[in-house]
């Protein structure tokens, strides 16, 4: 044990009928992101920088539900949120309600490093972005044809989409432990298709969608409500800390016992370099690698 490790995800709850090309596209993207992470880790870049780097890749690619490619609100616009957390001191930065920031995860990082606060949202966050000089674009930049079509479907079905009949792309996340045993986690998302304006999900809420501490780093995806109610990410760390479970036991315990009827998944890794993932959904886009050469990308 020991050594670096990285895990990424592109959303839990995958349509079993998702066309092969889409499946492969997703796996290729995750594979590429894992590679980006591996190179960074091999060059001794700290965990906190690696997770930001990897999530930026995922945000920039329009395939998953973050940054460009984010799902749409009921108004047809994009409102993004993200969070980054640094295990050793449990510092964090989170943002919600972004409409023009090209890489939400980087703004979250700036909140953590350059502001006296942990969480900024909506116009206050956009103002901060402007002051920090991050790259800003029009809201249209983030909107893809795919998502416009899906919003239409969702409105016809009159549902908020967490519904396999209308497959929606997933939240993205990354957890990393570097050679020094430092854990970090980051999550980024456009939220729920057809969501109310102003709706905040689980992803940017520390302890719910994302968590990192001395012991581990966790990023979750799935039904926001279920993840919040079960404070899913914190739960993994809490059972390790207070019940003495190892990473795999913790992930297993939490997925089995904490979700009730909720559907969700997560990736997690420990300071010892172990990687685990768990989900009670049909599939979760994920990839991981460890220093000893193990690497895997999968959905089911």
């Amino acid at each position, binding site marked *: 044990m020991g050594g670096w490790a990285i895990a990424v995800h592109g959303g839990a709850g995958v349509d079993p009928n998702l066309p092969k090309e889409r499946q492969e596209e997703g796996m290729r993207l995750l594979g590429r992101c894992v590679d980006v992470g591996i190179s960074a880790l091999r060059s001794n870049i700290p965990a906190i920088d690696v997770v930001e780097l990897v999530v930026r890749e995922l945000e920039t690619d329009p395939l998953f539900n973050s940054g460009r490619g984010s799902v749409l609100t009921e108004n047809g616009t994009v409102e993004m949120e993200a969070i980054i957390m640094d295990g050793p001191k449990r510092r964090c930065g989170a943002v919600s309600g972004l409409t023009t920031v090209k890489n939400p995860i980087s703004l979250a990082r700036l909140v953590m490093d350059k502001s006296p*606060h942990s969480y900024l949202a909506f116009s206050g966050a956009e103002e901060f972005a402007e002051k920090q000089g991050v790259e800003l674009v029009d809201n249209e930049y983030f909107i893809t044809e795919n998502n416009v079509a899906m919003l239409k479907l969702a409105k016809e079905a009159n549902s*908020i989409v967490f519904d396999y009949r209308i497959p929606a792309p997933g939240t993205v996340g990354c957890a990393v432990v570097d050679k020094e045993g430092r854990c970090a986690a980051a999550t980024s998302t456009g939220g*729920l298709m057809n969501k109310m304006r102003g709706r*905040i999900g689980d992803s940017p*809420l520390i302890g719910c969608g994302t968590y990192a501490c001395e012991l581990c780093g966790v990023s979750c995806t799935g039904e926001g409500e279920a993840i919040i109610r079960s*404070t899913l990410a914190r739960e993994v760390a809490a059972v390790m800390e207070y019940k003495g479970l190892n990473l795999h036991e913790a992930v297993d315990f939490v997925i089995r016992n904490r979700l009730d009827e909720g559907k969700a998944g997560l990736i997690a890794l420990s300071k010892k370099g172990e990687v685990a993932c768990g989900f009670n959904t049909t599939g979760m886009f994920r990839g991981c690698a460890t220093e000893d050469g193990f690497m895997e990308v999968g959905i089911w």
Partner: protein
Amino acid sequence: MGWAIALHGGAGVPLSMPPENRLPREAGLRHCLDVGIAALKSHMHALDVVELVVRELENFPHFNAGKGSVLNTLGTVEMEASIMDGKTKKCGAVSGLTTVVNPISLARLVMDKTPHIYLAFHGAEAFAREQGVETADPTHFITPENIERLQQAKEANRVQIDYTQPMPREAKKNAAIANGDSQTGTVGCVAVDSEGNLASATSTGGLVNKMVGRIGDSPIIGAGTYANHLCAVSATGRGEAILRGTVARDVAALMEFKGLSLKEAAAYPVDQAPPGTVGLVAVSSTGEVTMPFNTPGMFRACATEDGYSEISIWDSPIKVSN
């Protein structure tokens, strides 16, 4: 066994406070406690009780929630709140409210009337209008004390809650003069009713001189607020410390995973947090109450079915450091 209730009006009270500032707050705590006791005695559900009590605390202009909320750097009010039902673990949260008279009630509506848990800023305000909740002009919430606090914070040029930074002497003096009020107010209430249902609610205006759009710990489930079948917790103090420590959740986790008693479980995250940053109130399903804090004081009150009741500001049972 039996019902129990605990409420707070903010941790971080300085060691001395002139009577003209202390007495109205004590009166406020007493009034809100009485409201809660009466509600529990009439068999109101814990969730309704905590909402009711926090509404009272929000309406009270001397606490940092609803009317009397501290001001952000622009001199306006941005309120947030969250509520959680221990039995179902359903929850609701709001942030960035500027016109809603009772943020906690809007949080309750988000929980009951939307498919979401958390609404913020323009979306939350729009929802408030749809729901027809009571709104007021933003100036309704602003009090002279808070205008003064903001001014002092700007003069000291810092967000008014940084205990770890050495304060320039004049600023220290100013802060002490700042009517000796809680620098880290937030209000909250936890209750267990006679059926054993637990609930928690927290509401705040946040930090003096905060950046526009800043969200703290109060609306974050697991940090400022949490309730499950074992206990209900509402925390107050320095947002960062409560967030990092996922304080409210940890109390329950310690009871569940380490078998600690309510008192032990509640003391732990408070002890672990940097001195002067955290306080909380908590009740258990069996009717116990605990109110630990590591700040010089915390406005608080509690009562249990066996007739015990308490209103306090200082006298911390846990180590305190300035």
